[in-house]
Structure formats: C-alpha cells, structure tokens
C-alpha cells in the first residue's frame, strides 16, 4: 500500500521546493518547515515500504516515456537502505538548518534548493533505468552548484561552486558516454523485449550483461567509474570537494553525508554486476579507491580549517567505499553490502561531525581550529556528540565506523591474499591516519584553553536535537545492524537472477572450474587485531601531541620540512591542477583550438560568404536603374536575335 505512493518520496520535496521558492520569502524561517516535513514524509513512506518489502520483495513500477525509454521506480534492498538513510539524515540536517540558517536573508532560497537537492538524490536512488538515473544525477550536480555557491556574493564561494560544477562535469560526460555505449551494445543484441521492458532498465541490463563483449564491458565500466569518480570526489577529480566547504555547513553535511558524493558509490554498487563481469574494471576501482583513501588522509593531517579536515576525511572514506566495491573482484557480491554499509554508517557520523562543526562555527565565528580551543567546556552537547562522531570515524571498537571500516579492510585483505596487497596496505595506512587527524581536530578544537575571544554559548535545541539523534546512530548502528544488513543486501541481485559465477568467469575473477575464492581462509592473528591497534594507536598518538602535549609536533616536522610543506600545500595540487594544468596546458590547448576555430572553421565559412557577397555585388551593377542601359540591352538583344534567326534561315534550319 505504501509502495503505491512511492513517487511521493520525490514529489513531496519537489513540492516543498516550489512552495519555498514562491512563498518562502513571506514565511518565518524561509518556509523551511515545508522542506523538513517533505523529507520527513519521505522517511515515513520509506519506512512503510521497507516494512512491506522486507525481507524478500521488491517494488517495480514503470510507465512508458518516449521511444525506447521509460520512467520507473525500482526499490530493492540496495535502494531501500539508501532511501531510509537519505531521508533520515536529510530530515535531521534540514531540522538543524532551521536553527542554523535562521536570520539569513536567503533562507527561502536555501530551503528551496535543499529540497530540490534531496528530491534529486532520492530520485537518483530509486530510478529503475540508467537514463532516469542520469537525469537525477545531473540535477544533483546542479543543486550542489547552487548550494555551494549559496553565498554567491563571496567570490571564493562563487569560484568553489564553479569548480565543483566543472570538475563533476568531467565525470558526467564520461557517464553519458557510458550510457551511450551501453545502450548501443544492448541495442545491438536485438533482444526480444517483453512489453514493459526497456533497454536501459536495470533488470534488463542485469539479465543481458553476459551477452555483451567483455572489452565493451570494460569500456562501459571505466566510463561509469569516471562518472562515479567525479561525483564521489575520487582521485584525480577530488579537488572540488574540499573547496565545496564554502557553502553553509548544512550544505557540506548534506553533500558529504547523504546526497551527492554517495551517488558515485551508489552508481558503482548499482552497476556492480557489470563491473564484476568486466575484466580489470574492479581492479581499477580498488586501486583508485585505496589510493584516494590514503592520499586524502595525509592531507587531512595538516589542514587547519575544521571543515576542510572533515572534507578530506570524506574523500578518504569515499575511497574506502570505492575500494570496498573494488575488492569485490575477490569476494564477489558481498562487497556491495560491505561498501554500502560503510556508506550508510559514514553518512551518520559524517553528518554528525559536520553539524557539530557547524555548531562550533556558529558559536566561534571562524573555521580555523587554531582559534578555537576549549570549546568543549562551553558546548558540552556539541563536544560529546562530536566525540562520538570522531570515535566512530576513527574506527574505535564497537562504534559504527569500526564495524564498517573493519569489514572493508578485512575483504581488502582477502583481495590481497588472492590478487594484490596494495589496496590493503594503503587502506591500513589511511585508517591509521584517519584516527590521528580526527582526534587532532577534536583535541585542538575542544580541549585546552580558548585561543581567541568567542561567544561561549551552546547552540539552540533545534540544532542540538539532530546531533543527539545522529550520535545515537553513529554509536549503535554498526553494532545492531551489521549482520542483518549484510544478509539483506546480499539478496539484492538475487531478485534479478544475476548469475555471479558466470559473470565472474567473463570478468576473469573465477576460473571456469574453480570455486569462488578461499572464503574465510583464516586470517593471521595480526590481521584480525590490526584494526583495533590502528584505531586506538592513532587516537593515542593524537593525544600525545595535542592533549597531553608530551610531544611537540615540531619534533616530528618543522616549518622547513619538505614533507610537511608538501602536505600543507595539498601536494601542490592547486599548483599542478589549476596553475599548471588548467592555466598552462588547458589554456594553451584552448588557444590552439581557438586559432583553428577562427582560421579554419570560421575562415572557410567567411571565404564562402565573401565569394557569394562579392559575386552578388558585381552582379548588382547590371541593374543600373538607368533606363537607357536597359534599352541598349534590349536593342542589342534584338539585333543578336535577328542575326541568329537570319543565319539560321540561311543555313536552312
């Protein structure tokens, strides 16, 4: 019964968008309660649908759109857990925003755009075909652009919005290419589709992956991955994510936790059978993910902006999720459950962390954690909820982050045993660094003595409430939900009858005869306890440096230390990507293309038009307007005619 109203999950936020943008200006708090109510309604509906379909049903509705395409809703285990997470987290973020955005003259615009953002993300999740998913994907990109540039009068915000838009666009183009490629390949199979089936519908794609040539599959998978890399801020398209901090903190929370960046991971999870069947594709996913995880973690170590630290940690954790999917080459479809579990756990504690930092920024009035210090004394709730979030992010035992991250590291180890240890090593290092930088942030900001004069007050209850709720989930979700979650997600592709064994043979993960991998081949003791060691060890290291001050960071590094400078400068990414690559290489190429455009493309056209105009101009002169000239012409004509006729008669024609 709830499933019949599934379309409302998207329709309600869209309605909220319309109401806010037209009437929000005249309402208290910019009409934000519309947005909150709409997403809360979505949460209720999602819960209802979950009750209906759990544990072994799916919802699939579809209507024809045009030609070979349809519009549809597909709610399977993968989609429903995402729907629940997004509606839940976003409802809390919107509630928090009621307090956070209070008094901002653009509040109505904020809530309108936030509602649209939510709608786009929810639509993306339960699309039943790739084209529809792509449309919502683009809509998500647009909304992120609008929200990052929310304070558009600030040049840095406008620049960050542009950067986010352009960078993700690179990925989007690749996604579009994948879409076209996939459609082409599906069309060339000449399938006899039953009524109600369309080429780009996920069930149809799943059913026919095995018939597409493997090299084509790899192309498609890599292009899809390109899209996911852009959206999920993976290396090398991660540059926009830290800059995206220019928007309001609630926007950062939304982008980093629930909407936007998870879309890339979701896309790869959604198309996992295709990735699994494509030779080498998952290896690329695993390496990019693991590398991003490590790379971003090192940058998080040196950032001073509290939100940038969190942004780098998001990039890093997204790397974990990607790597978790990538190592599916070794462990098969179980990787989807593991990765999505981390995604959902991460969205709880990352939303929590961002909202806490928003609360701190709200009070202190700066993002720079060097100016905070001792905030915990005055903002007890914020400090302790943030502590829970940090423990979870650091992977402290029994917190959500521990269960989800540990599992990714475990399957990465299995991948290592079977194929390649590189992702495992990178992920272990990244996890250690995660614990260190998270607690560096917490200790520097919340303990010690105030280092600047700020308002020493706690945030209003409308902001604290969501923090507490999120903290509960960041604390307990992993412990209570883990096993059930994996079981549920593992059934996801069974609904479509995907034969992972056959696909694995195509992808070269499983030999024709051999069984799938050494399942639970018994890890060495050290591998089992390593996650505990790195989490606690990392926190202790951070405490030594920043809480007890037993060690001075100056001992390890100094201002002149090249490694520190390298990290502080973010690996000179700005210099490489923007100053060198964008301004020299791209600009140079652009000049070249511009020349070609002007000289050759425009030149040819200009020449053609010049010739035509010149010819006409010359021909025009015949029409003198002087009647005498016409008479002359007529007379001459007659003379010629007479002569011709005369000669003709003489010759005897």
């Amino acid at each position, binding site marked *: 019964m709830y499933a019949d109203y599934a379309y409302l999950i998207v329709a309600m936020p869209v309605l909220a968008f319309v109401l806010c943008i037209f009437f929000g200006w005249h309402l208290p708090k910019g009409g934000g309660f519309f947005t909150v109510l709409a997403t809360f309604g979505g949460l209720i509906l999602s819960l209802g649908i979950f009750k209906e379909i759990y544990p072994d049903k799916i919802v699939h509705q579809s209507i024809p759109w045009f030609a070979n395409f349809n519009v549809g809703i597909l709610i399977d285990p993968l989609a429903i857990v995402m729907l629940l997470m997004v509606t839940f987290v976003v409802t809390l973020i919107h509630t928090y925003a009621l307090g956070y955005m209070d008094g901002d003259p653009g509040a109505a615009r904020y809530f309108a755009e936030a509602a649209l953002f939510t709608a786009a993300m929810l639509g993306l999740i339960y699309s039943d075909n790739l084209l529809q998913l792509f449309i919502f994907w683009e809509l998500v990109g647009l909304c992120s652009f609008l929200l990052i540039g929310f304070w558009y009068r600030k040049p840095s915000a406008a620049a960050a919005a542009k950067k986010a838009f352009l960078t993700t666009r690179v990925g989007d183009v690749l996604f579009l290419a994948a879409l076209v490629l996939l459609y082409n390949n599906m069309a060339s199979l000449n399938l006899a589709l039953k009524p109600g089936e369309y080429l780009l519908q996920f069930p149809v794609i799943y059913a026919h992956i095995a018939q597409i040539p493997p090299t084509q599959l790899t192309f498609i998978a890599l292009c899809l991955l390109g899209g996911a890399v852009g959206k999920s801020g993976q290396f090398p398209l991660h540059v926009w994510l830290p800059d995206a901090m220019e928007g309001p903190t609630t926007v950062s929370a939304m982008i980093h936790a629930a909407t936007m960046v998870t879309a890339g991971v979701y896309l790869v999870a959604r198309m996992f059978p295709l990735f699994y069947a494509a030779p080498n594709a998952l290896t690329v996913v695993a390496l990019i993910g693991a590398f991003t995880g490590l790379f971003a973690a090192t940058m998080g170590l040196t950032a001073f902006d509290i939100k940038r630290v969190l942004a780098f940690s998001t990039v890093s954790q997204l790397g974990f999720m990607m790597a978790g999917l990538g190592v599916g080459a070794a462990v098969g479809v179980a990787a989807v459950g593991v990765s999505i579990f981390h995604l959902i756990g991460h969205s709880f504690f990352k939303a929590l962390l961002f909202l806490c930092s928003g609360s701190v920024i709200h009070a202190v009035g700066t993002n720079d954690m060097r100016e905070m210090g001792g905030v915990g004394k005055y903002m007890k709730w914020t400090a302790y909820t943030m502590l829970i979030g940090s423990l979870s992010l650091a992977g402290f035992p029994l917190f959500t982050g521990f269960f989800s991250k540990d599992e990714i590291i475990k399957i990465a180890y299995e991948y290592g045993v079977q194929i390649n240890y590189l992702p495992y090593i990178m992920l272990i290092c990244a996890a250690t660094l995660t614990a260190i930088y998270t607690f560096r942030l917490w200790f520097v900001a919340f303990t010690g003595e105030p280092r600047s004069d700020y308002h020493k007050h706690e945030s209003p209850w409308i902001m604290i409430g969501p923090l507490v709720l999120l903290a509960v989930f960041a604390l307990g979700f992993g412990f209570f939900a883990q096993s059930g979650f994996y079981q549920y997600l593992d059934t996801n592709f069974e609904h479509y009858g995907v034969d992972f064994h056959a696909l694995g043979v195509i992808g070269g993960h499983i030999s024709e005869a051999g069984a799938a991998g050494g399942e639970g081949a018994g890890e060495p003791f050290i591998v089992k306890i390593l996650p505990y060691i790195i989490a606690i060890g990392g926190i202790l290291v951070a405490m030594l440096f920043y809480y007890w001050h037993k060690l001075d960071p100056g001992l390890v590094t100094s201002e002149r230390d090249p490694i520190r400078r390298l990290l502080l400068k973010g690996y000179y990414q700005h210099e490489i990507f923007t100053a060198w690559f964008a301004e020299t290489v791209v600009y140079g190429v652009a000049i070249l293309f511009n020349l070609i455009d002007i000289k050759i493309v425009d030149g040819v056209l200009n020449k053609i038009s010049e010739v035509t105009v010149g010819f006409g101009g010359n021909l*025009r002169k015949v*029409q*003198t*307007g*002087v009647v*005498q000239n016409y*008479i*002359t012409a007529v*007379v001459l004509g007659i003379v010629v005619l007479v002569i011709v006729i005369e000669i003709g008669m003489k010759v005897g024609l």
Partner: protein
Amino acid sequence: MIPVELYILLASIMFTIGLYGLVTQRNGIKLMMCIELLLNSANINLVAFSANQPNVDGQVFALFSIALAAAEAGVGFAILISLYRLYGTIELDNINALRW
C-alpha cells in the same frame, strides 16, 4: 508615285537616329525628341503602306498615334519641368534619388 521602299528607308533612318539618340543622350528634352522620332518613323510607315494599297485604316491609326504622342509629350514635358524645378537640371544622370 514614289516607291514604298523609299518611305521604308526614310522611316528606318529616322528610327535608327531616334534609337541612337535614345541610347546615347542624357538630356531629358533630347530624349523626348528621340522618342518623337521613333513614333513618327512608325507613323510614316503606317501612312506609306496605307497609301500604297488603298486602305485608310493605316492613316486612321497614324492619327491616333499622333494624338497619343501629343499626350505623351505633354506629360513628359510636365515631368521634366517639375524635375527641373526640383533639381535645377534635366541631365538624367543627376536625377538618381531612387537609384542604389
């Protein structure tokens, strides 16, 4: 009786002169005169043939033609006079307000 060929010869000489003038001259009045020559050469032909083979139709036609020419001359000179008032000249090359 003068042979009809001579009339035709006269008429063609007049016609040629008129045509030549019409093509080469730029003065409005000269052009009017040339047009008269053309018309009258045609009239000569009409009258000559009419007299040659007894039939008055041609002479009647010539009378019509003369009346027409008078009317045409009246209108033409009126136009020329107003042009002269406007431009101070009747050199047709200078009257080119509507020309590109």
